[in-house]
């Protein structure tokens, strides 16, 4: 466990905060703690399958882990988020604590309300029981997971497959760069005119500072009015040109990135990833297909894919498999792979996201948000992993997590997954169409 804590700490220091100083150590600690506990959850799952440790001590560890994670997720993190958000707004410096508490209370309220429309309340338990909290966290987490994986499923094939790469030649890039520089020059010359006009007005203004009397003042007003009209026209042109230059810059950056990817794909490593990309895209398509089927036929998978796959092979090919033995190992490997890739994918995505929107002001808030998202993601993936495991191992999870409507979760996940996949397909299609058009218009 200490290992994981250390790992989380290291990761935090190196990757996330490469460019900024770490201000509050509390943030760091919280993030690492969240990470550590999430990893221990997965560790426990693996132990499950391997059969290490005593059954009762495992149970105990599970409970403990869950309690701590939930505590952190639901209480501490939102509180700190509220605190930091408030301290960022300069106006409310005085009563930071008060406002943070208020924010936290609103958060708890919404959190509770969230549970109402979903069929997860069971009248047997009280209000603050673990099941309630888990159910709510689970709902949010599952939604998040489905969104992310839907988008990822579509994005992956798009990025990896070189089929989609447009051909970019050096001449294109040069032409675009020249246009960019031309635009910059135009902006510069216009700004020069404005600066000169400002300066002459300033000098003339100084001259006119002496009280010249009534007529003199009226004259100065009329001349300066005509001058400033001219100026505002130029200023508008400058604004338009600046907008254009920004667009051109972004396009150039895009072209450079595409060119780099083309070069990368010609190398050996690139080819290897390309092949992987094909496999992965097939997997994604299959997942989407399965999700559609699940919804259309209103069916929830009872057996996991591995066992079913083995059953199919046994039935069709008539090979004598020792089903139990093999399914155990294969499922272990699969679960391991799923866990590792999902953790890795999550961390990478979070890092990219963090780079894209961080600034020195809000970095604390963002890190906390990320910690929260990560915690929810892990909790819900535990829920969902249950679907991919053979029935013997589901027992303990069902035991620990109490009476939750698992079927509901699976259904909900499929729905959101499908929705996000479809919308991201639409989005990417539009973006892809737009880019060659812009290219042609040059």
């Amino acid at each position, binding site marked *: 466990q200490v290992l994981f804590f250390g790992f989380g700490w290291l990761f935090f220091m190196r990757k996330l905060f*490469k*460019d*900024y*100083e770490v201000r509050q150590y509390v943030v760091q600690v919280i993030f690492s703690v969240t990470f550590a506990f999430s990893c221990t959850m997965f560790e426990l799952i693996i132990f499950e399958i391997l059969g290490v440790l005593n059954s009762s001590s495992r149970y105990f560890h599970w409970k403990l882990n869950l309690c701590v994670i939930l505590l952190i997720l639901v209480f501490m993190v939102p509180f700190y988020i509220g605190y930091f958000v408030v301290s960022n707004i300069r106006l409310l410096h005085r009563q930071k604590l008060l406002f943070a508490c208020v924010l936290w209370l609103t958060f708890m309220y919404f959190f509770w309300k969230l549970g109402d429309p979903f069929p997860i309340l069971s009248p047997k338990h009280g209000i603050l029981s673990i099941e309630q909290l888990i159910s709510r966290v689970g709902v949010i987490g599952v939604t998040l997971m489905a969104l992310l994986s839907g988008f990822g499923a579509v994005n992956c094939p798009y990025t990896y497959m070189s089929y989609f790469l447009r051909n970019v030649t050096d001449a294109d890039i040069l032409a675009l*760069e020249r246009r*960019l*520089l031309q635009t*910059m020059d135009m*902006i*510069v010359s216009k*700004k*020069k*005119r*404005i*600066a*000169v006009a400002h*300066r*002459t007005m300033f000098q003339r203004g100084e001259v006119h500072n002496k009280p010249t009397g009534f007529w003199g003042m009226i004259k100065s007003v009329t001349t300066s009015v005509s001058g400033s009209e001219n100026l505002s026209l130029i200023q508008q042109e400058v604004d338009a040109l*600046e907008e254009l*230059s*920004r667009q*051109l*810059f*972004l396009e*150039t*950056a895009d072209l*450079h*990135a595409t*060119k*780099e990817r083309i070069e990368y794909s010609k190398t050996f490593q690139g080819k290897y990833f390309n092949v992987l990309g094909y496999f992965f895209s097939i997997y994604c398509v299959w997942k989407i297909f399965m999700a559609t089927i699940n919804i259309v036929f209103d069916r929830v998978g009872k057996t996991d894919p591995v066992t079913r796959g083995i059953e199919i092979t046994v039935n069709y090919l008539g090979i004598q498999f020792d089903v139990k033995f093999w399914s155990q190992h294969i499922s272990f490997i699969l679960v391991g792979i799923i866990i590792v890739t999902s953790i890795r994918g999550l961390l990478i995505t979070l890092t990219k996201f963090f*780079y894209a929107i961080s*600034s*020195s002001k809000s970095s604390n808030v963002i890190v906390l948000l990320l910690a929260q998202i990560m915690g929810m993601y892990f909790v819900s993936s535990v829920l969902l992993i249950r679907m991919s495991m053979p029935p013997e191992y589901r027992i303990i999870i069902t035991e620990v997590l109490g009476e939750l409507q698992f079927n509901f979760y699976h259904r909900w996940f499929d729905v959101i997954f499908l929705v996000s996949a479809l919308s991201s397909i639409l989005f990417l299609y539009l973006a892809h169409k737009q880019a060659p058009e812009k290219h042609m218009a040059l």
Partner: protein
Amino acid sequence: MAALDRVKVLVLGDSGVGKSSLVHLLCQNQVLGNPSWTVGCSVDVRIHDYKEGTPEEKTYYIELWDVGGSVGSATSVKSTRAVFYNLLNGIILVHDLTNKKSSQNLYRWSLEALNRDVAPTGVLVTNGDYDREQFADNQIPLLVIGTKLDQIPETKRNEVLTRTAFLAEDFNAEEINLDCTNPRYLAAGSSNAVKLSRFFDKVIEKRYFLRDGNQV
């Protein structure tokens, strides 16, 4: 009046250190009201009187090219930015006084900008490490500006200022520390303003007067 000579100065630094505010302050003499991220490059122009107060006074345009500093060191972004580095005459390096890493990144920035201009006989440092000898040889004047001075509490000021003094020495450059939201720091006659106009004079000299051979 539109036919004045021009000089190009780059303003470089990490994202969020205050380059756009600085440029706005220098050129419009006003504080920038709503700073937002610079995508690509934004240019502003300042009219500078070279050798003010002497009979050789001449007015020049100084173009301050403020290159957006966001995104990491992906090579594609570097090569996109590189299009702005042509025909440089001077560099202003901006770092944030409240953020140590931004001053360390200045070495990277200066190498990136200067490597574009290295003549074929120059030595290219390809691993990106800082090499002082390369700077000794450098013809392009540099100025180091530290921003957000107001956000450092009085107690820590000395320590921060000594650190930045070392930084400026490394670059063989002058340094100015200020706060971009307060025009008082660049008021005419203050030592900061003097350093600034000395820097601009140096840039103009290197561009126009040494080109005519070493007669001046």
